[in-house]
C-alpha cells in the first residue's frame, strides 16, 4: 500500500531521471530561449492606440465599452446600462477604488437593491446572495490591449464570485492600466506574493457545444460592460 503524499516524490522523480539517462539537475537548467518571439515586445503603441485596440477587441466579443473623462458621467453611463438590461439588484466589491469612484452610492442613487461583498460574512450565504442578483460590479486591475481582456487579482475584498455568478458583469478600468500584452501584466506581478487567483476575462461566457452554434452566458455572465476611466 502506497501512501500518496509527498513521500513518494523521490521515487517518482528518480524514475524520470533514469528514463532521461542522467541524475536530476541540481540547479535550474540553462537555456538560451524563453517566452514569446523577440518581435512580440518590440512595438510600443501609444496610450491612445492601446485604448483603441482594447475597445475594438472587446467590442468584437460583444463587450460594451465606454470611455469616461468626467467623473460626473459615471452615473448616467451605468444607469443607461442598468435600464438596458432591466436590472433590479446588484452586488459590488467593498473596495477603496470603487468607493473613490462613488460606485456604491451611484448604485443606490439608481434605485438598485445593493449588496456589498462582505468577506467576513458567512461563506455559503454570501455566495448564494451573489448568485441571486442581476449584476456584479468590480474593479479591473489591468486591461490587455491586443485581446480586449481584463485582469483581476483576487484578495479578500476582490472576490472572485462577483465577476462570475451574476448574469451581467460591469467592470471599471483605468485607462492607464491598459497594457499591450498579457506578458506586460505578468511583469507587474510580485512573484513572491501572487494572488490566489489571477483571472483574465475576455468577453462573456460562451459555448459553441451545440452544433457549433454560439451561445453566451452558459455559466458565467452573458453580458459584460467596461467603463474606462481616463
Amino acid at each position, binding site marked *: 500500500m502506497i501512501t500518496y503524499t509527498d513521500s513518494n516524490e523521490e521515487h517518482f522523480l528518480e524514475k524520470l531521471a533514469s528514463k532521461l539517462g542522467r541524475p536530476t539537475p541540481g540547479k535550474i537548467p540553462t537555456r538560451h530561449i524563453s*517566452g514569446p518571439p523577440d518581435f512580440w515586445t518590440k512595438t510600443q503603441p501609444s496610450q491612445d492606440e492601446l485604448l483603441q485596440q482594447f475597445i475594438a477587441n472587446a467590442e468584437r466579443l460583444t463587450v460594451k465599452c465606454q470611455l469616461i473623462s468626467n467623473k460626473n458621467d459615471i452615473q448616467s453611463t451605468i444607469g443607461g446600462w442598468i435600464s438596458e438590461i432591466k436590472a433590479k439588484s446588484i452586488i459590488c466589491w467593498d473596495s477603496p477604488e470603487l468607493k473613490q469612484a462613488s460606485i456604491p452610492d451611484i448604485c443606490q442613487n439608481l434605485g438598485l437593491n445593493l449588496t456589498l461583498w462582505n468577506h467576513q460574512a458567512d461563506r455559503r450565504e454570501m455566495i448564494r446572495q451573489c448568485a441571486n442578483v442581476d449584476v456584479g460590479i468590480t474593479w479591473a486591475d489591468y486591461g490587455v490591449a491586443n485581446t480586449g481582456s481584463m485582469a483581476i487579482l483576487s484578495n479578500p475584498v476582490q472576490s472572485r464570485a462577483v465577476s462570475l455568478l451574476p448574469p451581467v458583469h460591469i467592470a471599471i478600468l483605468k485607462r492607464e492600466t491598459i497594457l499591450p500584452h498579457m506578458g506586460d501584466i505578468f511583469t507587474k506581478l510580485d512573484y513572491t506574493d501572487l494572488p490566489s487567483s489571477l483571472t483574465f*476575462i475576455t468577453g462573456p461566457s460562451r459555448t459553441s457545444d451545440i452544433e457549433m452554434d454560439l451561445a453566451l452566458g452558459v455559466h458565467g455572465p452573458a453580458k459584460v460592460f467596461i467603463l474606462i476611466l481616463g
Partner: protein
Amino acid sequence: MTTLMNENFKKRIKFALHNKSMREAIKKATTILKNNRLKAAEEMGDWDEWRQRGKDIRSHVIANLDYYLKQFADNVRAKGGKVYYAGQAEDVIQVVMEIVNQHQAKTVAKSKSMISEEVHLNKALYDRGIEAIETDLAEYIIQLAEEPPSHIIVPAIHKNRNEIADLFSKEAGKEISSDTPSLNAFARKTLREKFLTADIGLTGCNFAIAETGSIVLVSNEGNGRMVSTLPKVHIVLMGMERIVPNFSDLEAVLNLLPRSATGQKYTSYTSIISGPSHPGELDGPEEMHVIIVDNGRTNLLGEKDFQEALRCIRCGACFNVCPVYRQIGGHAYGSVYGGPIGAVITPLLNNDLKNWGELPYASSLCAACSEACPVMIPLHELLVKLRYRRFKAGYTSSMEHMAFKVFRHYFGNPRRYRFAMKSGYYLQRPLMRGNHLEGGPTPLSGWTNSRYFPAVAQKPFRQRWDEIQKGSEER
C-alpha cells in the same frame, strides 16, 4: 488494406462511416475550427516563429522534467497546496477517494479533464457511491448519453440538437425544446445548483508554472472558474508533462493554445491559480490538492523519437485537419485520445502495440497534422515509426509480409520487373474499367474497391522514354 487492422477497429470505422449525421457534424465543426485557426494565426506576425518558441519551451521542459516537477511541487507546497504523485490510473482513483473520504464528500463537480477520462474516474466514483458531475456543456451532454468524448476540444461534436434535447428532456422529466437558448438555459440552471452545492471541485490543468507553483485553466463557459471558486476543496488532475518554466513561457504557450484550438485570441477565462485561498478570502477553495499523473507518460520519456509527443498542449488542431478523423470521427479510434496525436500516444501510453498498434494506420501520412501542430510535433513521422515498431514486434500479418516479399522480388530486378509489367497488362484485363481497375481478389480489392488504381499501360514509360528522347534529339 484489410489485413492491417483488427476486426474491432474495422467494425468501428464501418459503423462511423454509416453514421451520416455524425459525419456531417464533424465536417462542419472541423472546417470552422480549422479556418478560425488559420485566421487567428495570421495576425500574430511570423506564426512559425511562435511555433518554434512553443517547440523550444516544451522540449526544454520535457528534457528536464524531473527538475521542473520538483520545483513546481516545492512551490505548490510553499503556497499551502498539497502534492501527490500518481504512477497509474488506480493511484489517481485512490488519491481522489482519500480526499473524498476525508471530507465525507458526496458530490464532485468537474470541469474538463482528459486525465479523468484516461483513468475512468467518473465510473470509479460512481461505483463508490460518489456523484461526479461534468459541468462543461459538451461533457455534460455526453455524460448523460454515457458516451466518451469524440473530440478533445468539442467533445460532443457528434451529437445534434435533437439528440441533446432528448437527453435533457429525460433528465428534466419534462420536454426541453431543441433551440440553443432553451438547451443552454436548462444546462445553466441545472449545473448552477451543482456548482453551489458540490463538496469538491475537480479540474484538469492546462499548464503548470514551475517557478511559482501556479496552475493555469482556460475555459470559455466559466465552469472551470466555478469549480475552482465555489467548493471548499479543489482537486487538480495534472498530466506530469503540463509544465512551463515561468510566466514568460506561459505567455508564449497561451498565445498558441486558444488560437490553435478554436481560433480565439484567448478563451473567455484564463485563470492562474496559486495555492488555496488566502486568509480573509471568502470564496475560493480552502484546500488545494494537486495530483501529478504519469499513467504511461514515462514510456515516451527518453525515447529519442517519441519523447517529442510529450510536447503536446492538447489543442486538437491535428484532429481538425486530419482527412481520416474528418471521415470517421473520434469514437472509431476506440481510445481516449483520437485524431493524429491519439494515434501516436495511445499505443505508447498503454505500452501495447498488439491492441493499439493499428491506430497509426488511421492516417494517410499527408502531414497536415504536423503542419498544424503549434509545438511542431512531427506527427506523421511518428506514425510511420510506430508502424515500423509494430512490424518489428511481429504484429503485422503474414499476408502483408508475403505481399512485400513479392513486391521486392519483382521490383528489385529490371528483368523481373519487365516481366511483371507485361503479364500485369494481360492479367488485369477482366478488372479494367476505362483506364483504372475495379474489384478483383483480396487483398487487391481492399484497394480497388475504395481507391483509384490506374491500369498498367500498354506501352510502359520505360519504352516511351527512349522514343521521347529520340524525338527531342531530332528537334
